[in-house]
Protein backbone atom coordinates (compact mmCIF):
# COMPACT_ATOMS: atom_id res chain seq x y z
CA UNK A 1 0.00 0.00 0.00
CA UNK A 2 1.35 3.36 -1.04
CA UNK A 3 1.38 5.87 1.83
CA UNK A 4 -0.36 8.38 -0.43
CA UNK A 5 -3.29 6.12 -1.20
CA UNK A 6 -6.40 7.66 0.31
CA UNK A 7 -9.28 6.11 -1.62
CA UNK A 8 -10.58 2.75 -2.80
CA UNK A 9 -11.81 2.49 -6.35
CA UNK A 10 -14.23 -0.29 -7.29
CA UNK A 11 -16.26 -1.38 -10.29
CA UNK A 12 -19.96 -1.74 -9.45
CA UNK A 13 -21.12 -2.72 -12.92
CA UNK A 14 -19.33 -3.28 -16.21
CA UNK A 15 -16.97 -0.38 -16.83
CA UNK A 16 -18.43 1.89 -14.13
CA UNK A 17 -16.57 2.86 -10.99
CA UNK A 18 -17.19 4.60 -7.69
CA UNK A 19 -14.89 5.29 -4.75
CA UNK A 20 -14.90 5.52 -0.98
CA UNK A 21 -12.30 6.71 1.51
CA UNK A 22 -9.62 4.16 2.36
CA UNK A 23 -10.42 4.63 6.05
CA UNK A 24 -14.01 3.45 5.39
CA UNK A 25 -13.01 -0.05 4.26
CA UNK A 26 -13.49 -2.88 6.77
CA UNK A 27 -13.11 -6.09 4.77
CA UNK A 28 -13.54 -7.67 1.36
CA UNK A 29 -15.78 -10.73 1.58
CA UNK A 30 -15.70 -13.49 -1.04
CA UNK A 31 -19.03 -15.19 -1.76
CA UNK A 32 -20.98 -13.22 0.82
CA UNK A 33 -23.94 -14.87 2.55
CA UNK A 34 -27.00 -12.82 1.63
CA UNK A 35 -30.49 -13.05 3.12
CA UNK A 36 -33.20 -11.45 0.95
CA UNK A 37 -35.43 -8.97 2.81
CA UNK A 38 -39.11 -8.96 1.80
CA UNK A 39 -40.33 -5.67 0.30
CA UNK A 40 -36.87 -4.10 0.36
CA UNK A 41 -35.94 -1.99 -2.69
CA UNK A 42 -34.04 -3.58 -5.58
CA UNK A 43 -30.79 -1.79 -4.84
CA UNK A 44 -30.83 -2.91 -1.21
CA UNK A 45 -32.50 -6.29 -1.40
CA UNK A 46 -30.60 -8.30 1.18
CA UNK A 47 -28.86 -8.43 4.52
CA UNK A 48 -25.26 -9.61 4.40
CA UNK A 49 -24.18 -11.85 7.27
CA UNK A 50 -20.77 -10.64 8.38
CA UNK A 51 -19.05 -11.45 11.68
CA UNK A 52 -22.38 -12.50 13.22
CA UNK A 53 -23.94 -9.19 12.20
CA UNK A 54 -26.61 -8.70 9.58
CA UNK A 55 -25.66 -5.57 7.64
CA UNK A 56 -27.40 -3.96 4.65
CA UNK A 57 -26.10 -4.99 1.24
CA UNK A 58 -26.30 -2.32 -1.46
CA UNK A 59 -25.84 -2.54 -5.22
CA UNK A 60 -25.24 0.77 -6.94
CA UNK A 61 -26.24 -0.30 -10.45
CA UNK A 62 -30.03 -0.52 -9.93
CA UNK A 63 -29.93 2.70 -7.95
CA UNK A 64 -28.81 4.56 -11.06
CA UNK A 65 -31.00 2.65 -13.47
CA UNK A 66 -28.54 0.00 -14.61
CA UNK A 67 -28.73 -3.77 -14.42
CA UNK A 68 -27.65 -5.31 -11.15
CA UNK A 69 -24.93 -7.91 -10.88
CA UNK A 70 -25.96 -11.32 -12.16
CA UNK A 71 -24.12 -13.08 -9.38
CA UNK A 72 -22.56 -11.38 -6.40
CA UNK A 73 -19.13 -12.81 -5.76
CA UNK A 74 -17.67 -9.98 -3.72
CA UNK A 75 -18.94 -7.69 -0.99
CA UNK A 76 -16.91 -4.77 0.26
CA UNK A 77 -17.76 -4.24 3.93
CA UNK A 78 -17.58 -0.57 4.80
CA UNK A 79 -17.94 1.42 7.99
CA UNK A 80 -19.10 4.93 8.72
CA UNK A 81 -20.51 7.04 11.51
CA UNK A 82 -24.23 7.78 11.33
CA UNK A 83 -24.81 11.49 11.04
CA UNK A 84 -27.94 11.27 13.22
CA UNK A 85 -26.27 10.01 16.40
CA UNK A 86 -22.58 9.44 15.71
CA UNK A 87 -22.88 5.65 16.05
CA UNK A 88 -20.49 3.48 14.08
CA UNK A 89 -22.34 1.44 11.46
CA UNK A 90 -21.45 -1.14 8.83
CA UNK A 91 -22.76 -1.87 5.37
CA UNK A 92 -21.72 -3.91 2.34
CA UNK A 93 -21.32 -2.89 -1.30
CA UNK A 94 -21.69 -5.39 -4.14
CA UNK A 95 -18.61 -5.46 -6.39
CA UNK A 96 -18.22 -7.02 -9.80
CA UNK A 97 -14.45 -7.37 -9.40
CA UNK A 98 -11.63 -6.57 -6.97
CA UNK A 99 -11.07 -3.02 -5.82
CA UNK A 100 -7.86 -1.06 -6.04
CA UNK A 101 -6.40 1.75 -4.00
CA UNK A 102 -5.72 5.12 -5.55
CA UNK A 103 -4.47 8.56 -4.60
CA UNK A 104 -6.96 11.32 -5.14
CA UNK A 105 -6.15 15.00 -4.88
CA UNK A 106 -8.22 18.15 -5.02
CA UNK A 107 -6.84 18.92 -8.46
CA UNK A 108 -8.80 15.94 -9.87
CA UNK A 109 -12.20 17.26 -8.70
CA UNK A 110 -14.90 17.31 -11.37
CA UNK A 111 -18.68 17.28 -11.82
CA UNK A 112 -20.77 14.24 -10.92
CA UNK A 113 -21.76 11.91 -13.78
CA UNK A 114 -24.86 13.13 -15.56
CA UNK A 115 -26.36 9.67 -16.18
CA UNK A 116 -28.40 9.66 -12.96
CA UNK A 117 -29.81 12.20 -10.56
CA UNK A 118 -29.20 9.68 -7.76
CA UNK A 119 -25.51 10.61 -7.64
CA UNK A 120 -26.34 13.96 -6.10
CA UNK A 121 -28.02 12.14 -3.20
CA UNK A 122 -25.33 9.57 -2.50
CA UNK A 123 -22.01 11.17 -3.43
CA UNK A 124 -19.87 13.67 -1.53
CA UNK A 125 -17.92 14.71 -4.58
CA UNK A 126 -16.31 13.38 -7.73
CA UNK A 127 -12.91 13.07 -9.33
CA UNK A 128 -11.63 12.49 -12.85
CA UNK A 129 -9.79 9.26 -13.54
CA UNK A 130 -8.63 9.02 -17.14
CA UNK A 131 -11.89 9.66 -19.01
CA UNK A 132 -14.33 8.67 -16.27
CA UNK A 133 -15.97 10.85 -13.63
CA UNK A 134 -15.80 8.74 -10.45
CA UNK A 135 -18.21 9.65 -7.61
CA UNK A 136 -16.98 9.43 -4.01
CA UNK A 137 -19.80 7.88 -2.00
CA UNK A 138 -21.43 9.39 1.06
CA UNK A 139 -22.03 6.18 3.03
CA UNK A 140 -24.33 7.82 5.56
CA UNK A 141 -26.56 9.02 2.74
CA UNK A 142 -26.44 5.62 1.03
CA UNK A 143 -27.28 3.45 4.03
CA UNK A 144 -29.25 5.72 6.35
CA UNK A 145 -32.22 6.51 4.14
CA UNK A 146 -34.46 4.72 1.67
CA UNK A 147 -33.66 6.09 -1.76
CA UNK A 148 -35.98 6.19 -4.75
CA UNK A 149 -34.92 4.08 -7.69
CA UNK A 150 -34.15 5.81 -10.95
CA UNK A 151 -36.04 4.13 -13.76
Amino acid sequence: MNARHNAVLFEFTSGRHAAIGLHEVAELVMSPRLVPVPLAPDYCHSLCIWQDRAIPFVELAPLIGQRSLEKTRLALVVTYFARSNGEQRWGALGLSTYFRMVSVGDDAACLLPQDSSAWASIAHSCFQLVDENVPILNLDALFEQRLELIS
Partner: protein
Amino acid sequence: MNTAAAGYALICFDGLNLLIDQHAIVSLENMIMLKGGDDEVKASEVIEGNACEVHSLTAHLVVANKIDARCRYIVVLQADEHRFGITVDSVQSLPIQDPILHLLPACMSFSESPVKAYVQVEERVAFCCDVGTLWRHINSSESRHECEA
Protein backbone atom coordinates in the same frame (compact mmCIF):
# COMPACT_ATOMS: atom_id res chain seq x y z
CA MET B 1 -33.69 -2.43 19.72
CA ASN B 2 -33.46 -4.74 22.71
CA THR B 3 -37.01 -5.88 23.11
CA ALA B 4 -37.25 -9.59 23.81
CA ALA B 5 -39.26 -11.50 21.25
CA ALA B 6 -41.19 -13.61 23.73
CA GLY B 7 -44.45 -15.10 22.55
CA TYR B 8 -43.53 -15.41 18.90
CA ALA B 9 -44.04 -18.30 16.53
CA LEU B 10 -41.60 -18.95 13.71
CA ILE B 11 -43.29 -19.79 10.43
CA CYS B 12 -41.57 -20.65 7.17
CA PHE B 13 -42.73 -20.55 3.55
CA ASP B 14 -40.90 -20.17 0.22
CA GLY B 15 -37.62 -20.01 2.14
CA LEU B 16 -38.74 -17.00 4.20
CA ASN B 17 -38.74 -17.13 8.01
CA LEU B 18 -41.31 -14.92 9.70
CA LEU B 19 -41.90 -14.26 13.37
CA ILE B 20 -45.57 -13.88 14.20
CA ASP B 21 -47.08 -12.89 17.53
CA GLN B 22 -48.49 -16.15 18.91
CA HIS B 23 -51.59 -14.28 20.09
CA ALA B 24 -52.46 -13.56 16.44
CA ILE B 25 -52.62 -17.27 15.59
CA VAL B 26 -56.17 -18.62 15.68
CA SER B 27 -55.46 -22.15 14.55
CA LEU B 28 -53.19 -24.39 12.58
CA GLU B 29 -54.90 -26.42 9.87
CA ASN B 30 -53.62 -29.23 7.73
CA MET B 31 -53.31 -28.46 4.04
CA ILE B 32 -55.31 -31.54 3.29
CA MET B 33 -58.32 -29.37 4.12
CA LEU B 34 -57.76 -27.60 0.80
CA LYS B 35 -56.96 -30.59 -1.35
CA GLY B 36 -59.44 -31.82 -3.89
CA GLY B 37 -60.74 -28.43 -4.97
CA ASP B 38 -59.54 -26.15 -7.69
CA ASP B 39 -56.20 -24.38 -7.33
CA GLU B 40 -57.64 -21.10 -6.14
CA VAL B 41 -60.01 -22.59 -3.62
CA LYS B 42 -60.92 -20.37 -0.69
CA ALA B 43 -60.55 -21.86 2.73
CA SER B 44 -63.89 -20.41 3.72
CA GLU B 45 -65.35 -23.28 1.75
CA VAL B 46 -63.53 -25.96 3.64
CA ILE B 47 -62.41 -24.75 7.06
CA GLU B 48 -65.49 -24.81 9.18
CA GLY B 49 -65.47 -22.44 12.12
CA ASN B 50 -62.58 -20.41 10.73
CA ALA B 51 -64.23 -19.14 7.57
CA CYS B 52 -61.61 -17.03 5.88
CA GLU B 53 -59.60 -16.66 2.73
CA VAL B 54 -56.31 -18.48 2.44
CA HIS B 55 -53.35 -17.09 0.51
CA SER B 56 -49.96 -18.37 -0.49
CA LEU B 57 -47.24 -15.76 -0.28
CA THR B 58 -43.84 -15.69 -1.92
CA ALA B 59 -40.61 -14.89 -0.10
CA HIS B 60 -41.13 -11.29 -1.28
CA LEU B 61 -44.58 -11.24 0.38
CA VAL B 62 -46.28 -11.17 -2.99
CA VAL B 63 -49.63 -12.98 -3.12
CA ALA B 64 -49.28 -15.97 -5.41
CA ASN B 65 -51.89 -16.58 -8.08
CA LYS B 66 -52.44 -20.09 -6.86
CA ILE B 67 -52.37 -21.84 -3.54
CA ASP B 68 -48.98 -23.48 -3.08
CA ALA B 69 -49.90 -27.13 -2.80
CA ARG B 70 -46.38 -27.99 -1.60
CA CYS B 71 -47.08 -26.34 1.76
CA ARG B 72 -48.11 -28.61 4.62
CA TYR B 73 -50.13 -26.30 6.85
CA ILE B 74 -52.39 -23.28 6.94
CA VAL B 75 -51.89 -20.77 9.72
CA VAL B 76 -55.12 -18.92 10.43
CA LEU B 77 -54.39 -15.42 11.71
CA GLN B 78 -56.49 -12.75 13.36
CA ALA B 79 -55.79 -9.11 12.52
CA ASP B 80 -58.23 -6.89 14.41
CA GLU B 81 -61.62 -7.96 13.01
CA HIS B 82 -60.09 -9.68 9.97
CA ARG B 83 -59.31 -13.36 9.84
CA PHE B 84 -57.18 -14.89 7.08
CA GLY B 85 -54.95 -17.88 6.43
CA ILE B 86 -51.55 -18.29 4.85
CA THR B 87 -49.98 -21.51 3.69
CA VAL B 88 -46.71 -22.47 5.37
CA ASP B 89 -44.12 -25.23 5.30
CA SER B 90 -43.53 -25.26 9.04
CA VAL B 91 -44.55 -23.62 12.31
CA GLN B 92 -42.62 -23.76 15.53
CA SER B 93 -42.09 -21.85 18.74
CA LEU B 94 -39.06 -19.58 18.70
CA PRO B 95 -36.23 -21.99 19.57
CA ILE B 96 -34.14 -19.46 21.51
CA GLN B 97 -34.68 -17.59 24.77
CA ASP B 98 -34.67 -13.78 24.89
CA PRO B 99 -33.60 -13.10 21.31
CA ILE B 100 -32.65 -9.59 20.35
CA LEU B 101 -34.86 -7.79 17.84
CA HIS B 102 -32.95 -5.56 15.44
CA LEU B 103 -34.65 -2.83 13.45
CA LEU B 104 -34.20 -3.18 9.70
CA PRO B 105 -31.61 -0.75 8.31
CA ALA B 106 -33.17 2.54 7.23
CA CYS B 107 -32.35 1.97 3.56
CA MET B 108 -34.59 -1.12 3.39
CA SER B 109 -37.57 -0.22 5.55
CA PHE B 110 -40.72 1.79 4.91
CA SER B 111 -43.73 2.65 6.99
CA GLU B 112 -46.27 0.44 5.17
CA SER B 113 -44.15 -2.70 5.37
CA PRO B 114 -45.32 -5.47 7.73
CA VAL B 115 -41.65 -6.26 8.31
CA LYS B 116 -39.83 -3.79 10.55
CA ALA B 117 -37.28 -5.89 12.43
CA TYR B 118 -35.39 -9.15 12.35
CA VAL B 119 -33.93 -11.71 14.69
CA GLN B 120 -30.97 -13.98 14.13
CA VAL B 121 -32.12 -17.48 15.03
CA GLU B 122 -29.17 -19.83 15.05
CA GLU B 123 -28.06 -19.86 11.39
CA ARG B 124 -31.21 -18.19 10.12
CA VAL B 125 -32.56 -14.67 9.93
CA ALA B 126 -36.25 -14.36 10.77
CA PHE B 127 -38.26 -11.23 10.08
CA CYS B 128 -40.77 -9.93 12.62
CA CYS B 129 -44.10 -9.48 10.93
CA ASP B 130 -47.02 -7.39 12.16
CA VAL B 131 -50.17 -9.35 11.31
CA GLY B 132 -52.43 -6.32 10.94
CA THR B 133 -50.03 -4.67 8.49
CA LEU B 134 -49.62 -7.99 6.69
CA TRP B 135 -53.37 -8.20 6.19
CA ARG B 136 -53.45 -4.66 4.76
CA HIS B 137 -50.48 -5.51 2.53
CA ILE B 138 -52.15 -8.67 1.22
CA ASN B 139 -55.22 -6.66 0.33
CA SER B 140 -53.28 -3.85 -1.34
CA SER B 141 -52.59 -3.71 -5.06
CA GLU B 142 -48.83 -3.78 -4.40
CA SER B 143 -49.02 -7.35 -3.17
CA ARG B 144 -50.71 -8.74 -6.27
CA HIS B 145 -48.22 -9.20 -9.04
CA GLU B 146 -48.25 -11.89 -11.65
CA CYS B 147 -46.41 -14.89 -10.30
CA GLU B 148 -46.70 -18.61 -9.99
CA ALA B 149 -46.66 -20.37 -6.66
